[in-house]
């Protein structure tokens, strides 16, 4: 059976919100499906060959780190975009997916998508959340082709008004900008969302869908299994009175 090659990209920098949970969730699925895999962790100063991977994960980061990574990733622009076009699965959470837009606060980004991220302008005033220059909220989203709602958390200091290649319709939460009702991007097998942290742990049906697609594309059978993650997910929906689609 083909070995699945996974890359946790900038593992030591883009890991601000429990991102390691996503890697554990991905490898749990591969273990359950008895699919062999290799997990690499690469960062600044490493030589990265994106074409050798089946799945890349990039997590949330602070804006100082984002600037370091932006510069570093531009070195790989052609290799990375070619790999995505040729079937690389790429999961990008939190503000990391801003790197795949056209620009971030006027600085050139990878331009896989046409949106331009800029500092949040519609500042939300909240006495307790004194962190005013950010969009912070819990989130409930819906995704085409998935019967289960996506739950998670937004906490980002940039925003954009992208209307193309939309990933989620946002029922609760700030979305890609405070007045938007959509969020995230999905093109080829690239999934980008401002939802941060252990997205794939908290949304086991989304994880099943992505992993099923990835394995099926590689002629590896996938059979969804029950898990504690799914029980916890349903308990959360029940607790917070969230409807399944």
């Amino acid at each position: 059976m083909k070995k699945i090659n996974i890359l946790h990209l900038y593992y030591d920098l883009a890991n601000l919100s429990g991102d390691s949970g996503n890697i554990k969730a991905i490898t749990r699925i591969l273990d359950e499906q008895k699919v062999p895999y290799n997990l690499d962790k690469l960062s600044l100063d490493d030589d990265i060959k994106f074409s050798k991977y089946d799945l890349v994960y990039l997590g949330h980061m602070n804006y100082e780190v984002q600037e370091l990574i932006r510069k570093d990733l531009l070195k790989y622009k052609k290799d990375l975009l070619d790999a995505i076009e040729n079937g690389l699965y790429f999961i990008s959470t939190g503000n990391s997916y801003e790197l795949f837009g056209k620009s971030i606060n006027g600085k050139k980004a990878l331009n896989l998508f046409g949106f331009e991220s800029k500092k949040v302008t519609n500042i939300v005033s909240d006495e307790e959340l004194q962190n005013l220059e950010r969009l912070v909220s819990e989130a409930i989203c819906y995704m085409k082709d998935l019967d289960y709602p996506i739950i998670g958390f937004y906490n980002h200091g940039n925003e954009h008004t992208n209307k193309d290649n939309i990933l989620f319709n946002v029922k609760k939460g700030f979305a890609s900008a405070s007045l938007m009702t959509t969020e995230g991007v999905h093109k080829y097998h690239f999934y980008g969302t401002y939802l941060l942290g252990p997205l794939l742990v908290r949304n086991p049906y989304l994880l099943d869908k992505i992993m099923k697609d990835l394995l099926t594309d590689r002629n590896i059978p996938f059979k969804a299994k029950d898990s504690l993650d799914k029980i916890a997910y349903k308990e959360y929906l029940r607790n917070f009175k969230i409807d399944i689609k």
Partner: protein
Amino acid sequence: MTTLVIILNKIVTFLINILKIILHKDGSVWPGYIASKCDPDILNKLVYPKFVIGVTGSSGKGSTTKLIAKILTKNGYKVVWNKNGSNITNALTTLILNHTNPFTKKVKCDVLLLELDESSFYKVFNKNQMTHLIVTNLTRDQVARNGEPILVYNRVKDSLSDNIHLILNADDPLVLRYTIDTNNTYTKYGIQRYETDYTKPYNDTLDSTYCPRCNKKLKYHFYHYGNIGSFYCKECEFGTNPLDYKGKDINLTNRFMTINDHIVKLDHGAFFTAYATLAAYTTCNLIGISDEDIMKVLNNDYKDSNSENMFRVGRRKIEMIDSKPENALSYEQTIDYINEQKGTKTVVIGFDNVSRRYALNDLSWMYDIDFNKLNKKDIDKIYCIGRFRYDIAVCLKYNNIPDNKVVIVDDYKRVLPNKVYNHSKGNIYVVVFLDMMAPVKKALSEVRR
């Protein structure tokens, strides 16, 4: 006008104290709120004592403040400090005005000592009143409110005036960065190698492990926990050493450590107590208290700082540990503390809310905690309780805790005592957020075996 506002603050405090008895609610913010509305600049019109000391950071500021207050008071200083832990602007305004003479406008003490919220202390002082600022650490904490550590760092930096002497935990790379980015004078404290230190990072979720000057990855001699340890940059002089105040030879079992060759007692068996003691020692020594006078207090007036949360049911010792969610490193130190205790152990983990301040429940921080440290032979069972008990159980599973050790308890008030007392072994460590301390304590202490 200033005189009237000070008097008004005292009158409102008096009334609130009466209401507090009836309503059982803390109203320490209201007098300060009203005073600030009358005069937003009121705190800048007072005459301050020689020493105005601030203590800030993501964790440890409360215990550090308490120790400083204890050392100073026992050495004859009159100290005004926020002993109830209210560290937001209006509560501090209430405190300061209540200790101010309305006519001379002098704050009536030798030392004004304030535990300061790291994200809002710039609202308290905007002139040159503060003389010393201790920064205990800057790690991921209440990210929904504070944003990332670098944002907190910047907020504190922007609030500094040049006259403030900084007292810095040099084991934290982000805290040490103030030595590069500001012109303030500073004193560095840090802890040398400890027996449970790591030579490689325990996991990947480390903040600020790149040199802020060169952007090169920092090298570490050792890690105490998270990114806290002894580090250096190969390209420049940025690094923990040299230290002005060195903590070493820590013995958490017998509860003592050495600070600059002086042995002092620790009032709790957790590693963070060593940092609080070291920071307090450093500060008091800097403002003129001798080593001997500090040691007299620390070594002769000893009481466990968590004793009120320890009790026994039959042969089982139970320790309640208030553990704030949203601060993974702080949470993990609680786990380290449990691991340091001898014998078989049972652990209870839970929270009903992530925050007391806001109704947002970001669960990301849980995945920054190395719960696999609980995967030890002497941990008998781990009970998951509260509204997020299933999420906790999932997180434990992802941290390789065996299924047979993890028990999800749906109705903890009714079921937990029977489960814990009849189906687990050893001393019981209850790791819960403040919202669950009282109900869990009640459930576990009122049981009839």
